[in-house]
């Protein structure tokens, strides 16, 4: 086993070697511009892109004509939200989204607010989920778009997408979902889920970085977005720029593999995740954040009370994880997602997101269980807060000195 071990697969994933092999010829041999219509270099590149477009469309149950290639999910989210705002300005200016969305969605919405949009940010419950009734209650005659992420990047919780999509369709409101964490991991179907726009990316599913897609529905209803990049009018005029052919080829292959391996990956990773989680929950005052039932199979977000985040990260330096620490020390920003859950006594704990992936081994899980358990126990042994908790002292009853 090689150290450090990688358990941060919600951030990005190692490329699958099969993807890498598929991409290789498109750097040195088939290097044409897919938009070049006058020679074989261009035709070959175009053919490769067409094939990849089919592979990418298939994983979300779409038609290849509905796929707009982008540089990644951030661009897709921006294009969906800003593009709808411009395209449907005559219809209305009200947007509905959720407080725990990715910054690419939240900040795009904030940008639109400056331009005159009205945005409703719905709060989530303590389990990280929103209720369909919240969406229904927030709809107005001016609502043009509802944007709700498929699965949350920090918690892994899966929102009730189909129910939300149904409400939107019934009310004639467009529905966008940032499905970056979900596609390739759990079944996603734009038709069954009533999705009109969907953002996703290659690098979260063992594909290359720098390539993603926006699904834009073509019928029932026909959806259009105003381009945010002006230029050669590529991608049906919605996204100009020379296509990233090797990236797109890799993204396509990654989708094909993900579709084939989804069930077995989910089963295997789910079992490993549960083993990790159950072992860590043996520690006292340890909690899982977010709904455990409606959750991605490879993700676990766990809080350890009375342990400081940065100190814990230092103790588990052989494991690459993300800390959604709730502490406010200089270098670790509190996670707005965790804050939105309204965690009790949230300031005296630290949270770690474990993200398993296709290449995670049982041996690595054993190592992680050991390493985290040792570090948490060690830090609690030296934590005055833990001692107070053990003595039954309420931390809120103490007058702390500001510094």
């Amino acid at each position: 086993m090689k150290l450090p071990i990688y358990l941060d697969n919600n951030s990005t994933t190692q490329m699958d070697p099969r993807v890498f092999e598929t991409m290789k010829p498109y750097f040195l041999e088939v290097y044409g511009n897919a938009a070049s219509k006058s020679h074989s270099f261009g035709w070959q590149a175009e053919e490769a892109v067409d094939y990849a477009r089919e592979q990418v469309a298939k994983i979300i149950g779409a038609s290849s004509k509905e796929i707009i290639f982008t540089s990644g999910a951030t661009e897709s989210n921006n294009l969906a939200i800003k593009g709808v705002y411009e395209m449907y300005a005559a219809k209305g200016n009200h947007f509905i989204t959720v407080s725990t969305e990715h910054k690419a969605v939240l900040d795009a919405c904030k940008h639109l607010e400056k331009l005159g949009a009205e945005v409703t940010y719905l709060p989530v419950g303590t389990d990280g989920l929103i209720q369909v009734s919240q969406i229904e209650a927030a709809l107005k005659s001016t609502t043009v778009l509802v944007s709700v992420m498929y699965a949350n990047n920090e918690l892994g919780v899966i929102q009730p997408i189909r129910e939300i999509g149904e409400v939107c369709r019934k009310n004639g409101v467009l529905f966008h979902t940032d499905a970056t964490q979900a596609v390739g991991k759990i079944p996603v179907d734009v038709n069954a889920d009533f999705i009109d726009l969907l953002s996703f990316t290659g690098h979260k599913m063992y594909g290359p970085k720098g390539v993603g897609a926006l699904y834009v529905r073509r019928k029932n209803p026909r959806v259009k977005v105003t381009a945010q990049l002006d230029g050669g009018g590529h991608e049906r005029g919605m996204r100009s720029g020379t296509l990233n052919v090797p990236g797109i080829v890799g993204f396509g292959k990654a989708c094909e593999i993900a579709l084939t391996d989804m069930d077995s990956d989910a089963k295997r990773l789910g079992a490993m995740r549960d083993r990790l989680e159950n072992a860590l929950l043996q520690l006292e005052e340890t909690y899982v954040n977010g709904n455990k039932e409606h959750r991605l199979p490879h993700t676990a977000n766990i809080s350890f009370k009375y342990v400081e985040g940065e100190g814990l990260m230092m103790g588990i330096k052989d494991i690459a994880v993300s800390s959604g620490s709730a502490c406010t020390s200089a270098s670790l920003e509190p996670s707005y997602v965790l804050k939105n859950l309204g965690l009790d006594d949230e300031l005296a704990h630290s949270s770690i997101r474990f993200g398993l992936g296709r290449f995670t081994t049982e041996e690595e899980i054993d190592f992680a269980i050991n390493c985290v358990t040792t570090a948490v126990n060690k830090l609690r042994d030296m934590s005055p807060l833990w001692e107070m908790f053990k003595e039954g002292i309420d931390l809120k009853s103490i007058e702390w000195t500001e510094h």
Partner: protein
Amino acid sequence: MAYSEKVVDHYTNPRNIGTLDKADTNVGTGLVGAPECGDVMRLQIQVNDETGVIEDAKFKTFGCGSAIASSSLATEWIKGKTIDQALSIDNMDIVEELALPPVKIHCSVLAEDAIRAAINDYRAKKGLEPLVSEKTHH
């Protein structure tokens, strides 16, 4: 962020972790920091009434590696010293010894505050006035 070797050493092998009996009249306890700031230090000293020498020192810290190292180092330094000598420890001495980066200077300040708070607690038990901090922190 890279930690200095000395911070890693104190984090890995902290000196003087533990708890002294805070009800003991020869024990002074200082609790500084706040959970919402991400650092809480508790530093305790056991003082010989006749000599004024700090015969034992213990700490417990909730915080980052630099906070743990600062308090560990502080206990190491004050053990065997008189109260007056302990009071002369400057937070910048800790910064220098542990090679703390600017964002971690507050950890050293907290350690110095913890020493002072423990000494004041001891003084209070002996019916003495608390010492007022004369210096401003770096």
